[in-house]
């Protein structure tokens, strides 16, 4: 089953053409890593998927529904506003800079959306939240405010917050880039756990070893285009594109 289908997506920031006709499919249960040099458009690609950025051209389908269509593509948005909003809920997002709500404790961060958005009863939301916090290993920090947590702990709370909405897809936007090196492992460990549960995931990352280990597919982006979409084995052992070779040499 195709969870996300992007067809010929274009995106501009002013006169800057950041996505130049990108097409991509992600199937249920797949783990896809997006790598590439900074400024290549990989974060923008991710942000277009859950409409934090509006696309300027192309078609975006989530679970078979056209949620966004722009430019002369001959397709109209088939999802109602409510359905579009529902697709957000099915997509959990983890940001590079965590974006935890600083005025709420870890637990309050996690129960916020289930209560406000899904209208869940508080007791049920707390149960779910405690399960998710336990999963990321932070149940003992549930009453702590984000300012008292380390970067790695913040990011794990952010993951628990996204998981509490019971998403079908998780989007990770460079989840470890803002972390001190010694804290990267704990966050990657949590993502790995999700991989074992066959969560559909799209991960923008610079962690090559990690991408190689857990991904079903690697997508390499450069200058607003997808240059490669291959299995990790193919990608790392026999890179076809010279740009990828130079990139990998620099990274490894």
């Amino acid at each position, binding site marked *: 089953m195709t969870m996300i289908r992007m067809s010929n997506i274009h995106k501009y920031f002013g006169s800057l053409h950041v996505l130049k006709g990108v097409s991509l499919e992600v199937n249920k249960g797949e783990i896809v890593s997006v790598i590439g040099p900074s400024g290549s458009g990989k974060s923008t690609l991710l942000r277009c998927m*859950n409409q*934090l950025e509006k696309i300027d051209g192309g078609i975006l389908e989530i679970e078979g529904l056209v949620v966004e269509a722009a430019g002369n593509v001959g397709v109209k948005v088939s999802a109602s506003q409510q359905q579009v*909003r*529902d697709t*957000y*809920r099915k*997509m*959990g*997002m983890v*940001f590079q*800079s*965590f*974006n*935890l*709500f*600083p*005025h709420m404790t870890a637990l309050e961060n996690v129960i*916020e*959306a289930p209560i*406000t*958005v*899904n209208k869940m009863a508080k007791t049920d939301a707390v149960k779910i939240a405690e399960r998710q916090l336990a999963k990321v290993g932070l149940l003992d920090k549930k009453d702590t*405010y*984000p*300012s008292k947590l380390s970067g790695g702990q913040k990011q794990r709370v*952010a993951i628990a*917050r*996204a998981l509490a*909405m019971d998403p079908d897809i998780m989007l990770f936007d460079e989840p470890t880039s803002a972390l001190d090196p010694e804290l990267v492992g704990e966050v990657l460990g949590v993502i790995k756990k999700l991989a074992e549960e066959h969560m559909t995931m799209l991960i923008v990352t610079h962690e090559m070893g990690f991408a190689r280990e857990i991904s079903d597919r690697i997508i390499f982006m450069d200058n607003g285009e997808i240059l490669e979409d291959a299995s990790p084995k193919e990608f790392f052992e026999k890179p076809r594109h010279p740009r990828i070779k130079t990139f990998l040499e620099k990274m490894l």
Partner: protein
Amino acid sequence: MDYVLTILPVLLKGLQLSLTVYVMVMFLIFPLAILAAIGKVAGPQLIKKILFLYTWIWRGTPLLLQLFFIYFGLPYFGIKLSPLTSVIIAFVLNVGAYETEIIRAGIESIDKGQYEAAKALGMTYPQTMRRIIIPQTIRRVLPATCSEAILTFKDTALVAAIGMGDLLRSAKEVVTTDFKITAFFVAFAIYLMISSILVQLFTRMEKKYSIYE
């Protein structure tokens, strides 16, 4: 000392008026300022323009002029308000304009990531404002708001200018009739006491609400 006791009831009556004005104003400005600030940040172009004019004019001219305009000037248009109503309207509009700008700056200081995280969790714009942005804004603007609140208490002395018997006016009346300045010193002490209490109170409040940062 006996003299102080004889004038005290008059002064306390004046104080009562000052405090009434103060409390009413403080209660009314927040809804006004929060709505105006949201309008300024997120409203349609027309609303933004109107609110820009509002804060520009009200913060750019003296409160006393605004008070005179409402109390003396509005009857010219056939609108006659009681002194207390005039005072409340003038103060609410004036302090509200300052507070609007404080809150607007507070809203704009909230990181964009907070909006994005809320959106990614499926929250609507009103939900995002109510649950995520405004609570953080309020904590962040607390210091500026508290100092505004202390200034406002001192500004209540302006009601003496339209002849209302507030603390200042009562003290002045006593001084001019009795030709003794004791009343001024008592009023002095009362003002000082209240503003010191307010400072203490607000400092404590700030400390309490700053725990999470």
